[in-house]
């Protein structure tokens, strides 16, 4: 046993897979400790906040400031409002209104702004200009408003009598240290369509998905193992019956069965454990077949015959004389079942047949919601890509371990 373990941990593939998997598990255990709370809590009011560090604007106003004279600050600030393309667009508008801009240097901000402010009219409808374009100019014009000012901004607050009281005056060279701001929130993977913290949800969802995979894998392996053992060892009529059933369910795609059963259960009864069970119930055939063929090759070995002669019962023979020889095989099959169970949950959820929402997050449900809110189309990569990556990594690590084990137990495959 020790020897086998040593061998297993000598396989680079197994070790790589193992490290990834343990890494994911550690993340699942440790992250909730750092960032505790309900993973389904809607912290954002809007949808799909971008990843990054969020600083409370309210708090920064009252935080101690330092004055920093940074040479490129003004340029950056201007660039944020007035990009190169915007300058060209402004010229385009002016030309469309038949104002001569041939002598105008577009890089000369002051000159450009002067002409613009003099001529721009929100209600004008230059010929051939779409509403979308007119809207763009309105927004641009509004954002230009602050450019001409002297660079002091005043923040006021209404006191109890309704009077405006000045809270702070902010200059362009005032900076706060983020450390001094009491409220900042680092959303590593932003928020999803419900305004939930994606990373927190992802960690919790990965846990549920692995749980679903484990249950599904265990159910499938147990059923497959039992049927395979009985069928292979007993042979005869039992074998015929079991193989009959197994063959039928091998050919009828498990995916189809999964859809049909999940559908007929109905959404309100589909909790995560139920889904896991259904997945397990539709994916055992493959294990049963392989176990059976292994058992057949074992059943006439001397030690089995000996055991039979000494009058040992069926279950004892299966448990002590056959099972140990196929244990490695069963473990490998189990690993594969876990990984395909996770995948099956994700696919079901995408079809709208996954576990019911709002109880627990699963990787499939996260993916489904991201798709429903078309995260993939509006550039919110953080809502779906980490989910795909997580599924792939879990499944990859399991398969890598499996390949490693395969090489250990089948020496001919060794590198």
């Amino acid at each position, binding site marked *: 046993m020790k020897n086998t373990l040593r061998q297993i941990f000598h396989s680079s593939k197994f070790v790589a897979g193992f490290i990834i998997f343990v890494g994911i598990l550690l993340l699942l255990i440790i992250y909730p400790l750092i960032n505790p709370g309900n993973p389904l809590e*809607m912290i954002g009011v809007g949808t799909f906040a971008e990843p990054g560090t969020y600083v409370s604007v309210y708090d920064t106003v009252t935080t101690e400031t330092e004055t920093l004279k940074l040479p490129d600050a003004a340029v950056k600030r201007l660039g944020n409002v007035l990009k190169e393309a915007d300058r060209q667009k402004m010229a385009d508008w002016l030309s469309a209104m038949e104002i001569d801009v041939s002598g105008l240097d577009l890089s000369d901000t002051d000159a450009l702004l002067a002409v613009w402010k003099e001529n721009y009219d929100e209600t004008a409808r230059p010929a051939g200009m779409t*509403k979308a374009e007119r809207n763009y100019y309105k927004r641009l014009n509004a954002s230009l408003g602050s450019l001409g000012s002297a660079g002091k901004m005043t923040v006021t607050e209404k006191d109890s009598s309704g009077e405006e009281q000045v809270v702070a005056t902010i200059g362009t060279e005032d900076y706060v240290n983020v450390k001094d701001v009491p409220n900042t929130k680092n959303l590593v993977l932003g928020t999803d369509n419900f305004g939930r913290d994606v990373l927190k949800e992802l960690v919790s969802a990965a846990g549920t998905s692995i749980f679903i995979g484990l249950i599904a894998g265990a159910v499938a392996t147990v059923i497959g193992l039992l049927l395979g053992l009985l069928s292979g060892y007993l042979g005869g009529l039992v074998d015929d019956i079991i193989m009959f059933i197994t063959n039928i369910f091998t050919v009828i795609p498990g995916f189809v069965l999964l859809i049909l059963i999940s559908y007929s259960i109905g959404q*309100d009864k589909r909790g995560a454990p139920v889904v896991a069970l259904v997945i397990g119930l539709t994916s055992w055939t493959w294990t049963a077949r392989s176990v059976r063929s292994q058992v057949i090759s074992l059943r006439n070995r001397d030690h089995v015959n000996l055991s039979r002669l000494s009058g040992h019962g069926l279950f004892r023979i299966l448990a002590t004389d056959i099972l140990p020889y196929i244990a490695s095989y069963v473990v490998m099959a189990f690993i594969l079942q876990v990984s395909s169970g996770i995948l099956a949950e994700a696919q079901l959820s995408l079809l709208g047949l996954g576990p019911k929402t709002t109880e627990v997050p699963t990787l499939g449900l996260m993916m489904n919601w991201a798709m429903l809110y078309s995260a993939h189309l509006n550039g919110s990569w953080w809502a779906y890509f980490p989910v795909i990556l997580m599924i792939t990594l879990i499944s990859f690590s399991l398969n890598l371990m499996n390949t490693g084990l395969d090489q250990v137990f089948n020496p001919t495959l060794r590198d």
Partner: protein
Amino acid sequence: MKKFTALLLTAAITLTGMMSTVSVLAEDVQLPREETLYFGGQQWGTVNSYNPIGTNQNNAMATTPQLIGSRTLMFETLYMYNFLDGSLTPLLADGDFAWNDDLTEMTVKIKDAAKWSDGSDVTSADVIRTFDIGVEIANGVGTGYGPYIDSIEAVDDKTFVIKAAVTEDGVPVNPLKVNDFLSAVLIAQAGWIDAVCERNNNDPTAIMNDAAEDVVWSGPYTKYFDDDQKVVLIRDDNYWGQDASMWGKLPVPKYIAHTIYADNAATEVAFKAGEIDVDQQFLPNIQNTWLEEDLPISTYMEEAPYGVCLTMPTAWYNMNNPVLAENTALRKAIAIAVDYDTIIANAMTNQSPSFADVPRSLMNPTEGEQALYDHEAVADLQWAGNDIDGANALLDEAGLTDTDGDGWREYNGEKISLNAVCPNGWTDWMAAMEVVAAAGKNIGVEITTLFPEWDTVQTVFTNPNQTEYDIFMWSPDGAGPSMPWGRVRQFLDGDLAGIENNWTGNWGQYKNDRATEIVKQIPLTSDPEELKALYTEAIQIYLTEVPSFSLMYRPAVFHAVNESVWTNYPEEGDGRNIPPADCTDGYGIAALYDLELVG
């Protein structure tokens, strides 16, 4: 390896075989982009037929009768409804209609120029036959207007009188519904209807399922092509409406095309790619399309809520559940605990006015309806939402307390446990239900969300005896000639309680005698002050009793345009008074005559 080559060959053959089964049309195989207006979000699934008197056409572009304005591309209504101001503009009709004094008879004229595609005149007989066949075969026209219209009689070829159904005391049942008839019912040709009846031996089902290959139409467009992936209408250049008495010209696009997309996401991609010009679809965070993606997309209004909200998706309490029926305090507590700002920001991505902007009532947010009730009189009854303390206080006061210390409140010793239901896949509603459930958690009332498939939901909530759903979401009607009365009825009419297969309203089975009486009085009241008093009283009852609570405001139709090919769509304040109704619904179709190509 030979076998695989053979397999590949089989594949190739299958592909060719598949192509040959696709129906082929001779003329234009590629629709010229500059002559085609593409739609999205209207047609889901394959078109069944172009049968204007059927009920199973699944043909959004050609046959969609609806209160907020029927789609008059192929078949036409008598009048076109404009939800911006509630006006009716004559289409097939000529000039205004006239009621007699006791609102029992309405006289309508038909335009002289109005013609069918076969060249014959549109006459009174066509209107009469359309109504009569509806009653005979019990299609939407028959079931929808049969109870309110006794008969339609011809005065002459171009004039007819609609006789309203009257009660035993000679009072019209509901004159407002007769107004609906004018703008919602698509008129079919009498001669064609006769032919359909004859070939189907007058069997109602067969008539409604008739393929209508030979249909005669009066509208500016007609069928051109349809398959699983698209439907295309082509302009009828002989359209009568180019007569000076109607539009004086033809609509601009030669083709109206609608690709059939699998889902919202696919529609959104196509819209952003400029493959759809006019999109009737909720686009979350639509402002990002122009703010961040720089796409030539615009909406009727530049700022949130971007469109005209006409309805308010509402959470209905099921009065068959004793806990809800017996505890007004519970109903009110849940309603005031819900965080509406989150719903509006999240589910609607702010494409709805807030309840601070437009306080809750039975009215939609349009100015016309808002002016119909006394805001001051109900101001004390309003709530802002997210009022956890207030809700807790209400519940404590009503004696709904947590007696066994499990964190949940009990009623008569039993834990109050409710579900909140909406159809699966209706994302914005699902998000709203999640927020309602979260509110329950804050006030010690267990609310779990439940998202069954849509077909399950519809059979349950239209069943008057259902006890499966406690809080469920549904929208009242948006706009139409009979609004806001129709909506008041949907919220408060006790006579609707107990009706089997109830699609009409009062899905929560709420009964209040005074409210039911008000619903009866409004259609017969014409004095504005009296009306205002009635509406205000109805709202008072509604806000006090809380038989349901609205969660957000929402457009009845979404209307976003991609101006990469076409422009000059209706916009707020352009003086044309064309509603943002996707250039197709009711008076919204006027936009088709004004479109211009970009550049």
